[in-house]
């Protein structure tokens, strides 16, 4: 590990942990379905930054970039399908509050 990468690693890790906590807290505390998706997005962003940082430190930038591109594609699909599900639930219940989702059957 080069000296420059070593000095970068810890401050980045600190902020990645902070970003992860923000996303996780949002996911835990919110009752709104759209805000839960936003929390999930923040978690994915923390993971993305961690991957890019590790790629920079280990000098495997090309491999990590290809992994990050795959991650971004997955992220888009997950968010698009989840947004569709949220819209469907809103049409059924006229609410985005998870506490109102009590009529699930099966």
């Amino acid at each position, binding site marked *: *590990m080069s000296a420059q990468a070593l*000095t*970068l*690693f*810890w*401050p*980045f890790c*600190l*902020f990645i*942990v*902070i*970003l992860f*906590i*923000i*996303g996780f*807290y949002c996911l835990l*505390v*919110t009752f*709104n379905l*759209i*805000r839960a*998706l*936003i*929390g999930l*997005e*923040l978690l994915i*962003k923390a993971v*993305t*930054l961690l991957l*890019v940082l590790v*790629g920079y*430190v*280990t*000098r*495997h*930038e*090309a*491999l*990590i*970039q*290809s992994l*990050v*591109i*795959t991650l*971004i594609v*997955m*992220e*888009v*699909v*997950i*968010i*698009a*399908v989840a*947004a*569709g599900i*949220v*819209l*469907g639930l*809103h*049409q059924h219940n006229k609410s985005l509050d998870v506490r109102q989702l009590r009529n699930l059957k099966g």
Partner: protein
Amino acid sequence: MLALNIDIVVLFLMALSALWTVMTRSLLRSAIGLALTSAMLTILMFRLHAPLAAVFELSVCSGLISVVFIATISLTQPMSQEKVLQHMKDRLERFWYLPILLILTGIVLSFLNLKFNLILPAPEIEKDPRIVLWNQRPLDLLGQIIMLLTGAFGIVILFREAKKK
């Protein structure tokens, strides 16, 4: 040293925009905050020598996902004034712990300052992510295509169900 300072400023801005995304009352502002967080992440990716991934992040996460969120927000019904007032009280009770938790975590982690002595693999020779993606990891591309098709079919089925009802 200057480069590290710039990185820390951008990291701080990213954390602030993420906090604003979570704390703000309006969902629309949350979506804008998320786009801002993505833009900050893009700057960091450029600085960490990942330009192709950064361009993807900027165009897809900052652009497309924001559009998806804003479309979802505009298609859902806004709350009545009474509900909004009640909701504001509830939100304040639930979210005021977050800044305190973040400050405590920041203080604890900055005092810890762990040293990592990792045994790292040798640096790779291939520097072009396009060659890595097409030649070394073609299964990833197959996975991406399958995911995209799954997403497309999922959305088509969801909207078809909604139309029938």
